């Protein structure tokens, strides 16, 4: 088994490879101060240990086998911490690829004058390290996407508060662009609040919505219809001049929907409809 050489080399000169690797990493590290030398040292030592164990298994070039599970998990963990520490993707990938130099040097020492064997070993090692490097980048990207998704979810929750204006009147100030996902959340929130508070009138304030296109208008109409089905009325407020013009130009039919230019007018109308009068 040719792979035996690789694990032998790793076993024999693991310490040396580790020392060289750690030194290379430390000197190349652009993100100094983001990760401590001891932490880096721990990670490299752990990786070499895991690699030694894994390369003893038969199928050392295919990293999807169960033997490589610990090493994959370890790399995923490293990627995740790299994301949290603010490393870029190439810096993260360099963690693995910088192992090549010391590792190849060790293989060369081991093979001596046998050029064929050396070429063979180097090829195997490259294949393995490339696969591991790609896996690292992949998990790095995945972690980044998780962060983005989480932020998106948080923004969704942040951006749709339902406020109670008066007994039986609730308002939903909408800020930012409306897309399908967001409208869905907004609609669910609003309807849920209507049930909880028993509100008769809901005011949708679109002052903070930069543009209204046919899609957004359709979403608004859906919300209004859903509210009507539940037995509540809906007033749309905060329609700016440009938006009013756009809606007319687009030919969107807002018939049957009460719209007001600002929240104050909408509130006044809502109070009137609920039979409340205010004195100054």
């Amino acid at each position: 088994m040719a792979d035996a050489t690789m694990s032998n080399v790793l076993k024999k000169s693991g310490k040396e490879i580790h020392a060289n690797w750690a030194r290379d990493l430390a000197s190349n590290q652009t993100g100094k101060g983001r990760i401590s030398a001891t932490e880096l040292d721990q990670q490299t030592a752990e990786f070499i240990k895991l690699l030694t164990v894994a390369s003893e298994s038969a199928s050392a070039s295919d990293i999807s086998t169960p033997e490589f599970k610990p090493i994959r998990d370890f790399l995923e963990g490293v990627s995740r911490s790299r994301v949290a520490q603010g490393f870029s993707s190439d810096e993260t990938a360099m963690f693995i690829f910088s192992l090549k130099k010391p590792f190849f040097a060790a293989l060369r020492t081991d093979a001596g004058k046998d050029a064929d064997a050396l070429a063979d070993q180097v090829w195997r090692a490259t294949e393995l390290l490339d696969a591991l490097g790609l896996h690292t980048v992949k998990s790095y990207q995945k972690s980044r996407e998780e962060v983005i998704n989480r932020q998106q979810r948080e923004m969704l929750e942040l951006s749709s508060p339902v406020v109670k204006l008066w007994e039986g009147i609730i308002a939903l100030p909408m800020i930012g662009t409306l897309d399908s996902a967001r409208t869905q959340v907004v609609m669910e929130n609003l309807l849920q609040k209507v049930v909880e508070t028993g509100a008769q009138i809901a005011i949708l304030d679109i002052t903070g919505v930069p543009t209204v296109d046919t899609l957004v208008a359709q979403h608004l109409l859906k919300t209004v219809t859903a509210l009507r089905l539940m037995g509540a009325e809906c007033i749309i407020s905060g329609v700016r001049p440009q938006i009013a013009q756009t809606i007319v130009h687009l030919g969107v039919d807002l018939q049957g929907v009460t719209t007001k230019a600002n929240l104050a007018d909408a509130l006044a109308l809502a109070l009137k409809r609920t039979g409340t009068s205010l004195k100054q």
Partner: protein
Amino acid sequence: MGEFLLVTIQIDMHDQMALKLQDDLSNAIIKNATRGVLIDISTLEMVDSFIGRMVADISSIGKILGAETILVGMQPAVAITLVELGLSLPGVATALNVERGMVLLRRKIDADGTDVSER
């Protein structure tokens, strides 16, 4: 309930049952000389297009038979589903709960049966 009829749909309706309900309700309206019908669907959690249309039909039938019909207590999820299905139930009066529905019904009948639906 006197001149009012309260229909509560408590379990998820299957199609056959919906048809039977429609039949029973129209007979009951004639028999009891009902002037107002409240259809309470607050426990209905799932609707498909058929049930959605059935609910709309029942409301329309009530209206044709001379009784004001109000749909009360629709759940948010149901409302969203109906809207997504394109069933906006035009012309059907709605109210948040039975109490509100009763007030609305009373107001409508007091207006001497004329349709005062402003929606």
